[in-house]
């Protein structure tokens, strides 16, 4: 099979899996998950083949950058021309395909264990609610409460398959429209999966919040699509990133001279709005923490490793447009990225240190890390951003799956004690899990260190270091300082999390009875842990520590994707300053976190709370953004909808006007009836009738019914007329 046809087929297995499960096999759990996991495995296999052919084919990434795998067909006829869609794999999408294939496959495998396949059905489980456990009786007659299988087990795999389809479509697209299609399909899946336990009002609200918040970004992105399409007549990467088009976009003022931007910048900003929504950047970050309402941690992982990465992927993709016209420093669009990205990074990191929910900490760290990438793009370090995107996908997937494993272990403990009011996600209830859950502990530790940027071994170190180096070399010191501060906080809250969960003694009975999770969950953890370390090695700078290491920095091949962009990175030479900063903040944060939470006891006050005092509450409540948005936008739009649009405008003004018209018509009708119709028309007709009636009444007496009377009358008349005629003829006539 040619590589092109293989790429066309990549998204197909998950899509087929979705339809098969939904339409046919949803009653059979084993078959459903076999289909789902099988489809993910097929897609994974295909991705790996494509990736290998791309990376190690003729001439490697350099050659691929100039001659990507590409194939397109006409999709929409528009006027005399057609709109084409197709597939394209260039270095960037090949690298993305690599981590997407792996992480999606891991999610599927992990889900089998996480949704308790093989366990009995729950005693009181209802569809749309998380499983509550089942009672089983063993051969000795003892009753045990064990985990029960998810009631909507098959459906879960169907949604996951659809999600995988969306992600693959996004990656293999050769144009922004089908990218958008995949983007929105994932949005739908995100809605369905966050709201998977739809009977919980909180999950339902979170699902809607996620969908609506990202949709704010999406409508801007749609405008961006329309704008770009109308300017260039195409959305295909090959056309829109060609030098002539970029030249045109960079020098054309934006429509209506909007803020003095160039067309390229305005389009870039419109697209970036989509990313703000999808990648949960400030100010649309509010949905991501709430998205943790979904089944832990699988949808959480979607919202950390894959889907939210799509936002960053898209920005890297359109980087030539963002940077068009950047000969004289950063373009306005890039500055926007730098500001929003670095602010989000720091902002989310500060919130993360005050959260106690294990998943929420990770959610905020996701926002923060995505901010990192956006900021890196803003200062032009697109290779570093792509690098961090890949490493982050692996270690964040690992962390989320690890947290899911922890929660699963805690639920085990809860079933043991029977205290269902215990929150299995609250880190304050954990402690000492390293002994009961060793695999989870070690893999989580690796992930955590990678997130913190633990030097030299972990993937996160290399990618963060590259961002620092770029920021330093290009003189963006503000960004550098903000990101360094963020890195410190990141290391701190990661260590806090690891310490609270695994170190010390168990703080609750549930934590004591926690239990390691089945192999379907631990195997993905171990695989991802390998990548959380090894994925960084492909990006070691060629001149690290001033040594000449040869061409080892393979990730720079991604830059061949963007060879057509006018934006040239300054040649970065190695410097010890960013490396020192990187080492200092990572190790510093880890040490501070480790020291503060080394032996945290049950009932103790959180050291962070002690340290921050009143500000802690602000952080814990996420700077009150939810409350603020609710009080302003949500309430306002409800008022506009229910009262203003419907009651006032439609029912009040428009219908009121119509009713007034009707009333006037009624009134006029009444006037005509009373003043004209009744007296003149009706009265006149009645008068004529009554005249005839009177006539009849009067003359009916001669109708005696006697023949002879009639004859006499005839005789009289004949005589009378005879005289009359005689008179007329003889007297008057002469």
């Amino acid at each position, binding site marked *: 099979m040619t590589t092109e046809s293989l790429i066309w087929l990549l998204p197909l297995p998950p899509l087929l899996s979705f339809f098969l499960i939904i339409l046919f096999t949803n009653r059979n759990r084993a078959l459903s998950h076999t289909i789902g996991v099988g489809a993910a495995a097929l897609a994974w296999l295909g991705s790996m083949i494509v990736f290998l052919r791309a990376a190690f084919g003729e001439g490697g990434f350099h050659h691929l950058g100039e001659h990507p795998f590409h194939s397109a067909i006409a999709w929409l006829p528009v006027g005399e021309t057609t709109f084409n869609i197709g597939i394209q794999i260039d270095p960037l999408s090949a690298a993305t395909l690599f981590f997407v294939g792996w992480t999606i496959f891991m999610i599927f495998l992990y889900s089998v264990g996480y949704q308790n396949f093989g366990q009995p059905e729950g005693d009181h489980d209802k569809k749309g609610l998380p499983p509550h456990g089942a009672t089983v009786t063993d051969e000795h007659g003892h009753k045990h409460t064990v985990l029960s299988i998810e009631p909507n087990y098959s459906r879960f795999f169907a949604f996951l398959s659809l999600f995988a389809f969306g992600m693959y479509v996004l990656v293999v697209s050769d144009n922004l429209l089908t990218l958008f299609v995949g983007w929105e399909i994932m949005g739908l899946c995100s809605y369905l999966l966050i709201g998977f336990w739809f009977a919980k009002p909180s999950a339902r609200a979170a699902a809607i919040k996620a969908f609506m918040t990202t949709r704010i970004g999406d409508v801007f992105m749609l405008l961006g699509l329309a704008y770009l399409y109308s300017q260039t007549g195409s959305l295909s990467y090959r056309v829109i990133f060609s030098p002539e088009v970029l030249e045109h976009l960079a020098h054309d003022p934006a429509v209506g001279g909007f803020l003095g931007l160039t067309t390229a910048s305005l389009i870039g900003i419109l697209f970036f709005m989509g990313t703000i929504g999808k990648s949960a950047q400030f100010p649309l970050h509010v949905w991501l923490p709430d998205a943790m309402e979904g089944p832990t941690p699988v949808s959480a992982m979607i919202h950390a490793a894959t889907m939210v990465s799509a936002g960053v992927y898209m920005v890297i993709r359109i980087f030539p447009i963002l940077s068009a016209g950047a000969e004289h420093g950063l373009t306005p669009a890039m500055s926007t990225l730098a500001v929003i990205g670095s602010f989000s990074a720091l902002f989310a990191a500060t919130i993360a240190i005050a959260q106690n929910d294990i998943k929420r900490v990770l959610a905020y760290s996701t926002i923060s890390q995505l901010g990192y990438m956006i900021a890196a793009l803003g200062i032009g370090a697109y290779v570093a951003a792509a690098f961090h995107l890949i490493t982050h996908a692996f270690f964040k997937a690992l962390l989320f799956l690890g947290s899911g494993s922890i929660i699963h272990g805690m639920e085990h403990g809860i079933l043991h004690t029977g205290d269902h009011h215990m929150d299995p996600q609250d880190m304050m209830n954990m402690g000492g899990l390293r002994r009961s859950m060793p695999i989870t502990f070690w893999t989580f530790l690796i992930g955590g260190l990678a997130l913190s940027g633990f030097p030299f071994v972990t993937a996160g170190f290399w990618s963060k270091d590259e961002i620092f180096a770029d920021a330093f070399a290009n003189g963006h010191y503000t960004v550098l300082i903000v990101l360094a501060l963020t890195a410190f906080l990141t290391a701190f809250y990661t260590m806090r999390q690891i310490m609270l969960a695994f170190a010390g003694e168990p703080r609750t009975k549930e934590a004591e009875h926690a239990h390691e999770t089945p192999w379907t969950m631990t195997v993905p953890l171990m695989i991802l842990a390998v990548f959380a370390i090894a994925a960084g090695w492909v990006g070691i700078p060629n001149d690290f520590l001033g040594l000449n290491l040869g061409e080892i920095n393979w990730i720079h091949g991604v830059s061949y994707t963007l060879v057509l962009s006018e934006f040239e990175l300054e040649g970065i030479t190695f410097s010890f300053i960013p490396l020192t900063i990187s080492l200092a903040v990572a190790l510093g944060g880890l040490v501070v976190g480790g020291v503060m939470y080394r032996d945290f006891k049950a009932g103790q006050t959180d050291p962070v709370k002690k340290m921050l005092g009143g500000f802690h509450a602000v952080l814990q409540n996420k700077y009150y953004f939810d409350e603020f948005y609710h009080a302003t936008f949500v309430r306002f739009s409800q008022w506009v909808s229910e009262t203003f649009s419907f009651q006032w405008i439609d029912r009040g003004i428009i219908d009121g006007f119509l009713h007034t018209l009707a009333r006037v018509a009624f009134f006029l009708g009444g006037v005509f009836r009373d003043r004209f119709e009744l007296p003149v028309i009706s009265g006149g007709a009645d008068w004529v009738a009554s005249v005839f009636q009177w006539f009849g009444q009067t003359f009916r007496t001669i109708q005696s019914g*006697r023949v002879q009377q009639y004859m006499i009358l005839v005789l009289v008349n004949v005589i009378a007329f005879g005289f009359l005629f005689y008179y007329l003829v003889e007297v008057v006539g002469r």
Partner: protein
Amino acid sequence: MVPLSWYLIVAAGLFCLGLYGVLSRKNMVAILMSVELMLNAININLIAFWRYQDPARIVGQAFAIMVFAVSAAEVAVGLALVISLYRRRKIVIAENVDLMKW
């Protein structure tokens, strides 16, 4: 030759006789007979006028024959009505037949 006026006088007398009968008799059969008298008076007139005024054409005779036909039809219908009335209501008196009264 007998002058025309003689015929006319006879006819007028006969007509008045018939008219008197129609208006004064109570019996419907008698009324019918009186009508016949009136018609025959008219026939006399028709024939007389033809003979004296325009003997070249047969208009008067034709008219007279028409009148015969009409009177025969009239008597047939009239008698039938009378008999029918008699059979149903046992009356032959014209005054009592006031079905058409208001």
